[in-house]
């Protein structure tokens, strides 16, 4: 077994995702060791995109489980299709089937609605399972998840135990709104994603917007990098940079100095709260533009 993270890095680049060495290594390890990978980092650094890109690079399905407060085992494993079950009961009544037969029938795989976790382990080839924002779910759910992630089997009382057909590649993301348990952390490999540095962000911008002019791209990236150093409530992420770049190309900007008024108006792509918008008035924007142009 040769751990070729450079190869994976190149594959990810091919599908338009720029991963640095640390992230490529983390993903390669997760695949090689078959262990879940826990990704942490500020909102907007591209945690969710990692899973999408990994699925694309491996040529496999992405199954996503979005966590929220109150999420429980039923919503993530399986649910019976109650409406169909009720209809079937009526239909079989007319056919004169016995109770046992009806029961066998309506608790069969046909009436089972697979939710992400069950779906992920019943694929013929391993999919990428993205468990997004695990920190939003309750602690009880975290414990349940640990069990699934170590056994990879699900027991349904009416159907019996369903073992995994393939072990999915699991990526968990967390924004740090709640401290995760040590047990979960120890079960997972860990990687922290920071905002990209200038070179990486430029590479991302080029990969996503191939048509963008070289000089403008450089200015945009440097501007955003400087903006992140200001005290903001919500620092602009990569998605914001890309939005802003598309907006500027749409406005026919060739350089950031072109049109200060339009530039100021376009900052709504980067700054998403009222306080942040107010903290970057025209003078501040002009100062930043002065530094990058």
């Amino acid at each position, binding site marked *: *077994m*040769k*751990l070729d*993270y450079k190869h994976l890095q190149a594959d990810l680049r091919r599908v338009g995702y720029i991963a640095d*060495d*640390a992230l490529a*290594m*983390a993903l390669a*390890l997760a695949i*090689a*060791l078959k262990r879940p*990978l826990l990704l*942490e980092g500020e909102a907007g650094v591209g945690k969710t995109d990692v899973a999408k890109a990994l699925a694309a690079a491996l040529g496999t399905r992405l199954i996503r489980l979005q966590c929220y*407060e*109150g*999420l*429980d085992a*039923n919503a993530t494993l399986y*649910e*019976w299709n*109650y409406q169909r*079950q*009720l209809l079937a*009961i*009526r239909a*079989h*009544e007319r056919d004169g089937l016995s*109770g046992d037969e*009806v*029961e066998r029938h*309506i608790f069969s795989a046909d009436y089972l609605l697979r939710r992400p976790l069950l779906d992920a382990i019943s694929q013929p080839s391993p999919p990428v399972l993205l468990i997004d924002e695990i920190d939003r779910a*309750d602690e009880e759910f975290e414990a349940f998840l640990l069990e699934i992630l170590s056994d990879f089997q699900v027991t349904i009382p009416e159907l019996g135990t369903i073992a995994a057909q393939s072990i999915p590649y699991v990526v968990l993301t967390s924004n*740090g*709104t*709640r*401290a*995760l348990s*040590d047990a979960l*952390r*120890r079960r997972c*490999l*860990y*990687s*922290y994603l920071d905002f990209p540095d200038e070179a990486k962000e430029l590479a991302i911008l080029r990969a996503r917007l191939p048509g963008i002019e070289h000089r403008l791209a450089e200015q945009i990236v440097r501007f955003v990098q400087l903006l992140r150093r200001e005290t903001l409530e919500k620092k602009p992420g990569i998605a914001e940079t890309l939005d802003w770049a598309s907006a500027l190309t749409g406005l026919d900007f060739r350089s950031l100095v072109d049109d200060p008024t339009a530039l100021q108006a376009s900052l709504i792509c980067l700054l998403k709260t009222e306080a942040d918008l107010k903290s970057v008035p025209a003078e501040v924007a002009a100062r930043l533009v002065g530094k990058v142009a």
Partner: protein
Amino acid sequence: MSPAPAPPAASGPAVRLRGFMAHLRLNGFTVGPGETEAALAFLAAGDLDDAAASRLALKTMLSGDRGQWERFDALFDAYWYGTGVKRARPAAVKGGARAAAPRPEIWSKALPPEARGEAAGPMARADSETGDDTLPAGTGRLVASRQEALQRTDLRLLASAEEAEEAERIAERLARALRYRLSRRRLPARRGDVVDLRRSIRRNLSKGGEPLELLQKRRPEHPVNLVLLLDVSGSMMLYSRYLVSFVRGLLGGAIRAEAFVFHTRLVQISDVLRERDRLRAMDRLSLMVEGFGGGTRIAGALKQFNERYARETLNSRSVTIIMSDGYDTDPPAALAAELAMLKRRTRRLIWLNPLLGWRDYAPVARAMAAALPYIDGFATAHSLASLAALEAELRRV
């Protein structure tokens, strides 16, 4: 082949790696024999050809959170190359004016890393965080009223045993009263608000499938979690003696709670107060909070809380209680900004102000006036009786 990059000693790589694990453990990593084995097996397989790749792989396998992720490289260098952390530490200490004073050993265990950095001396702190212009320690030394009173105050002398016990009992009762709050997740219940289809269909099969008996589910009650911020500055001295006991009672175990004290800076005290022996707890607390009785920087302390602790201690079930008289040396606007931030993260924000118990008191202190718009509950805390009366106020979470 040698799996580890340039082991300095001639001993086997396994021994060296075990040493590295011990080194990580000493620095707060949670790595056990399982991790050692996995790392060794992985390195022995010889998948990686250079030191940089091995380092990245070990970093991914062994760190568990952001702090460890960021410290790993320095620790790695310190162990395998004998550089970095080891040498950096004495240099940082030399810069600090107060660093020469010996600290009780308790500091190293009880304080969060940030406060430990501060203990190394204000100079070292200023050096390391030049980017931050609102340093509590850096600015505090210039103004007389902000000076930290460095003498230790013995809390054991402040509170009479009965008073303290009474305060603890009241707090424990309160904690039990606060214990539950509604959750969004539904569980089976005899009388609920939603039909539980899964169980209903199962149950009614025996009656030919006709849904005659409907089973229901409802939201169970979920425990709240309390965050307590206690002002221990000079002006609060009279009250902090039983408020500390009160906080200790709330931490007693009935609910999840975290406690902090602040005057010119913020210190987490949950672990110290959970010590079973009350006198010993107070003793350790006095050691930790050396500046007891100094000036107040409420906004600065809240800023520290928002930046460092808010994320992990607050959730949608949190009730935050600030206990302070509202006399602040920070500008009121700063306090309002921090409270606004805090308010967004917590379900309910309650301010207990002992002065409210005085006759004819109106919250005219500028800080208090600025704070009022963000507060859900404003109550007094000037006596044990008033604390007992809080139960009704807090129940409406």
